[in-house]
């Protein structure tokens, strides 16, 4: 499939998932909002493609307030389509302890934070669909939860996409 330039010029969608712009293992946060803020901070310093950090954060929080961003009991996918980013950006975290994103999802461990340019509707859906597909697999989730290093974590993501 032809990827448009909303994924970074050198990276395709599977590559972006296997090597996100930011990756944190054992993130120590107390709530979903804290997790979003922390990952946003990482992303901001990791890539110049986040043009307007304040707006990006606001859009992420607004979206999370509007409707749940969780796709499984332990997986959250906070995201925003926003003019604040120039391409699709992805930050991934594994929390040190389960955090509550909303009342129905009190024990989230894996957080995939996505920022998408406004016009990139279908690319956004592609990415979210790909993530939700691979995180549906309990084996992949278990492997991600137990991966000892960042490299191993990335390797699990890369392998999971090939399945």
């Amino acid at each position, binding site marked *: 499939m032809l990827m448009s330039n909303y994924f970074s010029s050198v990276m395709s969608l599977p590559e972006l998932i296997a090597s996100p712009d930011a990756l944190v293992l054992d993130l120590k946060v107390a709530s979903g909002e804290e997790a979003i803020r922390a990952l946003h901070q990482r992303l901001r310093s990791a890539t110049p493609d986040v043009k307007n950090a304040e707006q990006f954060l606001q859009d992420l929080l607004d979206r999370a307030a509007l409707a749940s961003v969780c796709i499984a009991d332990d997986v959250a996918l906070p995201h925003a389509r926003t003019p604040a980013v120039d391409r699709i950006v992805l930050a991934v975290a594994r929390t040190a302890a389960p955090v509550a994103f909303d009342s129905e999802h009190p024990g989230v461990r894996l957080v995939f934070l996505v920022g998408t340019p406004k016009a990139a509707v279908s690319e956004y*859906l592609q990415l*979210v669909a790909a993530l939700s597909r691979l995180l549906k697999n309990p084996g992949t989730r278990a492997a991600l939860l137990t991966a000892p290093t960042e490299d191993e974590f990335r390797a699990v993501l890369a392998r999971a996409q090939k399945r």
Partner: protein
Amino acid sequence: MKAVTDPAKLLLERLLRLLRWRVWIQEKLQPTEWQITLLWAALVGGLGALVSLIFKGLAEGVHDVLTGSGAGVVESMRQLPWWGVLALPAAGGLLAGFVLLLGRRIARGQSSTDYMEAIVIGSGHVPIRSSLVKSAAALFSIGSGGSIGREGPMVQLSAVIASFLGRWRQFTPPQLRLLVACGAAAGIASAYNAPIAGSFFVAEIILGTIAMESLGPLAVSAVVAALTVRGLTSEAQLYKVPAFKLNSAWEMLPYIGLGLIAGVAAPWFLRSLKAAENFFVATKLPLIARLTLGGLIVGALAIKVPEVCGNGYSVVVDILNGHVAWLALAVIFACKWLATAASFGSGAPGGVFTPSLFMGASAGFLFGTGVHAIWPAGAANPGAFALVGMGAFLSAASHAPVMAVIMLFEMTLSYDIILPLMLCSVVAYYTAKGFEDRSLYSEALKRKAAETPGGLAFEVGSVAELMKSKPPTLRAGARFAEIAELFLSMRVNNLYVTDGEGRFLGAVSLHDIKPYLGEAGLAELVIAKDILREDFPRVAPDASLSDALGGFLNFEAERLPVVARDGTLLGSLAKGDLLLALVERRKKP
């Protein structure tokens, strides 16, 4: 993997499965709004044929009850004693007047808009109750032998059904007018078993355009109507005629003469009807008395000449087959003219289309007989002149030569006379047009238009008048399940998203979510805000139609949202409606 038991999840999966089907069907068939219009046209065609048949059956039933005979109008009049012949049409007029009077209470406040007015100068709204009242009254004027056509009410009822359907489905005015036109085409197609003429009659006379945007649905409707009639009855062509032959090109000469005569006679026929109407109005009699008087005149004529009763169909068949002597026909011709003027002038509900066919056939036959007497080789068979005379008279009366030629051909299925028919109809048309700028139909329409504020045509000037209000909308937070459900029920390709104050935020496109309908996991996460396209083009309510068309040229969509200056979503504009309105406007200078 454990089985999904959560009812919400099961419902979501079912919705997605249905939506996948919908998308699949849509991609395989790709029904555009035009094709959907064709489906409606077909439905209207079928229903129109049914109501036409019902009306015909009822009129025959009323006739059977009133005369106690199942024979044709003329035949049953012959069987009655003289006082019965005198009294019957008068009684019919009395009953019709009674129904109209009673109906005024039922249809209080409703105008008596007929289908032509509704299409040309109205919004496509044909009032149901007053149409039913008029048709019920027509049953008596027709069933009692009044010299009036039953086809008019058949067409009107067919148009009523179409208008009712269109209003129920909340069609926009151009669509509604087109659908009513389809109903009329269906009515004509079933009344005369003439689907081509039915579509062209409406296109040429009423819509004034034969652009494919309107002719296509008209044709579909007429075809379905004709099929329905043929399936339910055993009727083939209306007039069975012997074969005619053109022996030499010189035979065309007398036909030019016939064209001139028809071109002069038809306007006079129409003028006499109008004069009769003025006469009856001038008597200042109440409606019931007028109708009774009209019936009495018809009855008095029918004592000696029973052929004046009814729409003249059976007499035309006799003329075409040479079963009527010319002298007798001359008497019938004069009496029928008077009788039609009496029936029509007294206000008897019914049509004058079929009676004018009779006038043409008689005039043609008499002329043919005259030519035959002087120059036998020039008019070998006066019956052929009768046939051509019908077309010429119709062409001159309706100002629609194309329709007249086609209709004659369809009613008789006789291709042999096509050359004289075409020539004669065109000559008659130009003669009549030079004589009189009014046609059988323009008269009533002009009168109505003068009463209607805003001029002759229902002119659509801006987007606001054309749009469909209350389009289906979503909130920004709407869940995927909600989006899928709305896409399933609304048959649109884009759903509009509004905020709490009704301001337009953007649109969710079915095209975007199509590849992911199999992903239930995604469905739990995605809301309208995530996938809405803010840059979706929109049109302003005060934009001109050509500006709106520009919006469609740059963007592939069947509909565009109409958004006010303050951002409020007002409605949606369909490309099909816009094109129809532009076509309608083009035909009007």
